[in-house]
């Protein structure tokens, strides 16, 4: 089941430079929350702090706290690796493991943490995850062929299947469809909509139509000037944000005056 995320006064730093300043928000469970805003406004950076991915690759540091159902993800005794098992993530470009087959890819999360699985358990997880990602019928007869042989859309859905195989409570998606053609994008968007019933989903996107189609709540980030930190301007029901936002900056962005 999805879980609630509460963010309190979160600042993100790359060394001394503050990339994101004082973000506080609540992300409701079993809902799709979209982050929109011009490029460079820190929405992806902020997304990556939710599952502490920023520590691994971007060498960023964080102040403030993020609570998952009341548990602070940044308290010292929480192991960041545990956080990433709870909070799954799907990336901009589909990244199945090239050396593994489709089946191995789905089970990768579990196998890499060398949990032992019987053949039956493994098949059951592969089937439910692939079905969950609407991919099972398309690949059920070539489960042992190489994953990189599939189309872009299929690969992205495989990544989603791989993520939900870990049974996370939250799914983060960093512009999942920007590298896909329109048909695959539609397929992924429908999948997101279905998944929202039992996962908390947070999606970062440039595509405002996608945000309005898929998400229930939307947060608009903006950057006041070059070199200044990104800030959360306004967060509300998606319908309200796209019809009459209360903040002028959101209004300008929605009507395409800049950004």
């Amino acid at each position, binding site marked *: 089941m999805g879980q609630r995320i509460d963010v309190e006064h979160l600042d993100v730093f790359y060394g001394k430079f503050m990339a994101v300043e004082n973000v506080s928000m609540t992300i409701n469970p079993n809902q799709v929350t979209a982050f929109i805003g011009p490029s460079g406004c820190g929405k992806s950076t902020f997304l990556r702090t939710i599952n502490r*991915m920023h520590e691994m690759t971007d060498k960023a540091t964080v102040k403030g706290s993020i609570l998952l159902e009341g548990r602070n993800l940044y308290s010292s005794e929480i192991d960041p690796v545990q956080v*990433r098992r709870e909070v*799954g993530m799907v*990336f901009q470009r589909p*990244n199945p493991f090239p*050396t593994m087959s489709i089946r191995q890819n789905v089970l990768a999360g579990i196998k*890499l943490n060398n949990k032992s699985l019987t053949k039956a358990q493994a098949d059951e997880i592969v089937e439910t995850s692939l079905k969950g990602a609407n991919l099972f019928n398309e690949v059920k007869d070539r489960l042992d062929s190489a994953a990189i042989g599939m189309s872009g859309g299929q690969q992205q859905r495989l*990544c989603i299947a791989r993520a939900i195989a870990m049974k996370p409570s939250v799914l983060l998606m960093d512009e999942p469809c920007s590298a896909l053609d329109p048909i695959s994008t539609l397929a992924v968007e429908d999948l997101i909509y279905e998944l929202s019933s039992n996962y908390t989903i947070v999606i970062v996107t440039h595509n405002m139509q996608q945000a309005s189609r898929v998400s229930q709540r939307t947060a608009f980030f903006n950057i006041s000037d070059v070199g200044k930190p990104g800030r959360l301007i306004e967060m509300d029901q998606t319908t309200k944000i796209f019809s009459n936002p209360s903040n002028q900056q959101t209004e300008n962005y929605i009507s395409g005056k800049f950004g």
Partner: protein
Amino acid sequence: MSKISSFRVNLLSKNGLKSKVLFKNIKNNRLSKFIKPSSRVISRQRRQFDNFMKVLIFLSFIIVSIPLVSIIYIVVANGLTQITPYFLTHTMKGVMGGFSPFGGILHALVGTILITLGAMVISIPIGILTAIYLVEYAKGNKLSSIVNTLVDIMSGVPSIVAGLFAYSLFALFFGPTAVFGISGSLALSVLMIPTIIRSTQEMLNLVPNQLREASYGLGVSKFRTIIKVVLPTAFSGIVTGVLLSIARVIGETAPLLLTAGSIDSLNLNLFSGRMMSLPVYIYNEYSQGLAVCTNNIFGADCLSDIRMQRAWSAALVLFIFIIILNLVGTTIKKRILKKRGK
């Protein structure tokens, strides 16, 4: 206008020849009057100089091929005579002067393989782990820049100095006569470590970052990501790097001359007794000169320059050994680089 723009598009093609062809057919149609007149007048003199440089550059390729052809010719021509199954499966123990049986290089072949394996056991773990540190953990921090500089400097350590180092190290503990295989392995590993680090680094950098993020995203620790995802993806590249560094080191003579010494019989123990290796065998046979065949009371056939023939044959075997390692290494490497679309 479209004519000129297509001219510009063709120019982007990397191979210079195509653009020249296009340049010619523009000249003789109505657009040629737009080309600056001055460039056409002095072109004959500049074109001559251009052709002169072209000849010079083709010449440099010829200059480089001449020594190669002559080396391959002399090694193969002189080396083929003694390469027989007996030569490859027998040692030199019991060989007397120039009389047959003429002995073989088995003890040198096995010695080279054992010493190189010893060097691999020392240098592969250190090389790969250091490369992992430089690529995965320490991109850009102070220690990595120090280590990077030292690896470059270590790749410049002369083989004779590596030999002296290994000899003095073992002489300190086991006395001045400390000559055995493992000391040769240590000397060779000093030469191998830098090349393994560099090639592994190059291959690890080829692994796209998305793979690491994908694995982290699945809640996999950094250690397991490296062991289970990054290394398997870069595995064939790392094997190539190891093969090429073996090829570079297996032909070294100077360090083994000081550290592993020479012996006529088969020695399988790296830790005791001298151990013959192919390059030292070649130098040994070369430096023993002619054999006496004048008073041949034994009735066995006798060759006075048999030693030099054995030296050439051993050189040919070593050469083939290295060529195989090189070919296997470079073909895999080319396939990897092509797959990465480099």
